[in-house]
């Protein structure tokens, strides 16, 4: 029942308002009437008592004047007619009690002496003192006391009347308001009912009934108007919805078709991506792989599940700072980068690379990069280059050879011509002629030697025999046995440590050492000492041989003699074909030997150098690759 005033029905609210208002008015009216009446009544009671007092006082003047208490009593006794006067007394001019009424009341019940003239209300009574005066002379005082019973009776009556009036008025107000409030609440309730129906059934076709042209009437009109508008809008919304649905259906169909095409296209693109021989990948702005194709997986030997979503530099930390890394960064700035030839930092090989920034609204969101593996082409190129270099070299050599050959080979031919001319002219007889013939013979022999050496040199160039393991110790033994006679004749000493096993062509290596030993023996006047040493090429001495490729290990084998030596400026020249530093008559030779040595060293991916101080011997240094499959002999270390 603890309903808030706002929540109670309007009917009750109206009733309450009316009843409260009328109740308040009635109460106020009755209260003021009551107050007015009580004040008036008190005043009238007082004045009544005062009148009675005056009458009694006037009447009792003679009694007082002539000291007749009996008469006084009699006069007071007249008050018996006034039932509410409960006590009265006369005091003489000295203030002594003279007469009292009623007789039964003891003197103590009265004031011991007269008080001030006038009437006043006490708690229970109205009482007063009235002067008794005759002819302007005061003869005494009358005391008179009235109970309030009459007044209370009167008040009670007033109260009862007021209650009755209030009750009747209230009832009347109740019934009247019950009827009258319908005038106001009826239309509101009917409007509320209609509104309820509308909101419950969503039926916007119903209309509220209008009762009058007051505010509720206006409200009803506005409500009906609103309903009409809602109905109209509903109709519009429904038709709009239908159109929208139709449009959505059409659009969905279009989208489906487009989607299908897109899927097809996507499939197509994916197929191209996957079947492409090029490495194709896409990275986002954080350099994370988003797409990689099959070629990518194959070339880098990595599964796409391991890299998609990860950072480029995280997957391949070795690429940080590489060319490709920089190119990707450039592409991320929005520049298309094409690099025709980049060495891969990840795998051995070369790529032609394209870095295409993918933009959306002018902003790079990804980089597409396409790598074309050109390692094979590069390799072929490299081979071609090497072949070309070799061709150029052999061409130069050939030119040189042609030049030198024409010169050196012509020389014995010219001698043969001269001496055959001399013999033909027959101007020389006998001894002399045979001397010429001998010379012709010697020239022919020399020619044969030249041609044999040339053949052997030219054959070196073309040799493509398979390399085999060759123990240089064995090779050295064969060379020593070949030169056994000469060594004995010259009284030479060969100091040779244990030599390594290398991969090579045994007879070429034999020829290399044979030529060097032969040279050392040749350019030594007496008791030659040939000292052979072997060591591994140290990092510090590697720079002395700039032509040696890469990181391979090499043996350094030195063959030193104590012969005539040569000027340092000829240390390169002596390896050129047909190059002789000394007189042919003193030191026989074709000038091909050292050229052959160089050729053999180069054939074995090594090199040969020479150093010397004239008169103090020469040292030839052969550098050959270490054959790693064979243990290095302990002696060599």
């Amino acid at each position, binding site marked *: 029942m603890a309903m808030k005033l706002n929540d109670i029905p309007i009917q009750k609210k109206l009733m309450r308002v009316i009843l409260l208002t009328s109740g308040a008015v009635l109460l106020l009216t009755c209260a003021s009437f009551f107050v007015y009446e009580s004040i008036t009544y008190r005043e009238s009671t007082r004045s009544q008592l005062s009148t009675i007092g005056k009458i009694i006082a006037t009447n009792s003047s003679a009694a007082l*004047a002539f000291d007749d208490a009996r008469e006084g009593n009699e006069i007071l006794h007249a008050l018996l007619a006034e039932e509410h006067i409960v006590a009265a007394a006369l005091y003489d001019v000295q203030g002594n009690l003279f007469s009292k009424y009623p007789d039964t009341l003891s003197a103590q019940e009265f004031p011991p002496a007269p008080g001030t003239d006038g009437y006043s209300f006490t708690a229970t009574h109205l009482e007063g003192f009235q002067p008794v005066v005759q002819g302007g002379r005061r003869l005494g005082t009358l005391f008179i006391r009235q109970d309030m019973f009459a007044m209370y009776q009167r008040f009670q009556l007033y109260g009862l009347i007021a209650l009755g009036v209030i009750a009747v008025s209230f009832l009347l107000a109740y019934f009247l308001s019950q009827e009258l409030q319908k005038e106001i609440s009826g239309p509101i309730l009917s409007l509320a009912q209609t509104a309820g129906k509308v909101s419950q059934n969503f039926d916007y076709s119903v209309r509220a009934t209008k009762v009058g042209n007051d505010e509720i009437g206006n409200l009803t009109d506005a409500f009906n108007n609103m309903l009409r508008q809602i109905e109209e809008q509903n109709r519009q919304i429904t038709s709009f919805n239908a159109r929208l649905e139709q449009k959505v259906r059409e659009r969905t169909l279009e989208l489906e078709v487009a989607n299908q095409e897109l899927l097809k296209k996507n499939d197509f693109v994916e197929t191209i991506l996957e079947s492409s021989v090029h490495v194709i990948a896409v990275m986002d702005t954080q350099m994370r792989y988003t797409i990689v194709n099959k070629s990518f997986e194959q070339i880098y030997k990595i599964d796409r599940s391991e890299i998609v979503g990860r950072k480029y530099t995280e997957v391949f930390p070795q690429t940080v700072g590489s060319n490709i890394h920089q190119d990707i960064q450039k592409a991320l700035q929005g520049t298309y980068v094409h690099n025709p030839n980049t060495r891969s930092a990840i795998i051995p090989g070369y790529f032609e690379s394209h870095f295409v920034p993918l933009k959306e609204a002018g902003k790079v969101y990804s980089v597409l990069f396409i790598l074309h593996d050109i390692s094979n082409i590069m390799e072929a190129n490299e081979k071609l280059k090497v072949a070309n270099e070799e061709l150029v070299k052999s061409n130069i050599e050939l030119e040189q050879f042609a030049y030198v050959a024409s010169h050196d080979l012509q020389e014995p031919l010219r001698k043969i011509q001269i001496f055959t001319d001399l013999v033909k002219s027959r101007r020389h007889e006998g001894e002399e002629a045979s001397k010429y013939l001998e010379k012709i013979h010697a020239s022919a022999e020399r020619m044969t030697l030249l041609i044999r050496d040339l053949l052997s040199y030219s054959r070196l160039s073309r040799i493509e025999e398979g390399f085999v393991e060759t123990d240089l110790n064995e090779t050295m033994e064969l060379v020593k046995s070949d030169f056994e006679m000469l060594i004995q004749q010259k009284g030479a000493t060969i100091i040779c440590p244990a030599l390594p096993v290398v991969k090579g062509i045994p007879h070429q290596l034999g020829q290399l050492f044979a030529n060097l030993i032969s040279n050392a023996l040749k350019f030594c006047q007496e008791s030659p000492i040939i000292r052979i040493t072997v060591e591994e090429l140290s990092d510090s001495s590697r720079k002395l041989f700039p032509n040696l490729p890469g990181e391979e290990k090499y043996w350094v084998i030195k063959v030193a003699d104590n012969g005539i030596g040569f000027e340092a400026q000829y240390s390169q020249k002596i390896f050129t074909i047909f190059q002789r530093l000394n007189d042919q008559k003193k030191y026989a030779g074709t000038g091909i030997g050292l050229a052959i040595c160089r050729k053999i060293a180069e054939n074995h991916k090594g090199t040969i150098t020479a150093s010397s101080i004239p008169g103090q011997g020469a040292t030839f240094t052969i550098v050959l690759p270490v054959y790693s499959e064979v243990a290095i002999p302990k002696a060599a270390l």
Partner: protein
Amino acid sequence: MGVVWYALLFFSTIFSLRAQPEPTLEYKVKAVFLFNFTQFISWPESAFTNVDSPLVIGVLGENPFGTYLRETVAGEKIGSHPIVVEQYPELKDIKPCHILFIDPDFNHSLKEVPILTPNRGVLTVSDSPNFIKQGGMIRFYTVNSKIRLVINPEPARRAGLTISSKLLRLADIHVQ
């Protein structure tokens, strides 16, 4: 009612400071009563020569009040008329007055009193027992040591006096 007596005694002593022969208590009360009659009895205007001529209380014969009566009325007025006391030892001394107290020992008939003609407005008062029979108006008598009055209204009416009903209520009325 001894209290009243004492009160009256006290009252009378105030007014008889100069009294030579002290009157009895009875006469002191009677003196006051005489004065009080002026309050309850009204005289015709013809009884006064003019508006401020005095109301005269005359005592015929021996004066039993001494100076007490004079003292009682001293300074009192009835309307605009001051009250004075006069003494008439003999009949010949009588002058026009308004209240005439006749000493009981005075041995003359009332008929001999010259001023007691109708409409002269003279109130006659006495103690003598035959006073009313002789045609007197008010007589004092004593019951239970209290002074009571007998009033004969007829001669008073004839004299032109009006006696207040309040006074009449107190008194015994003599009916002729």
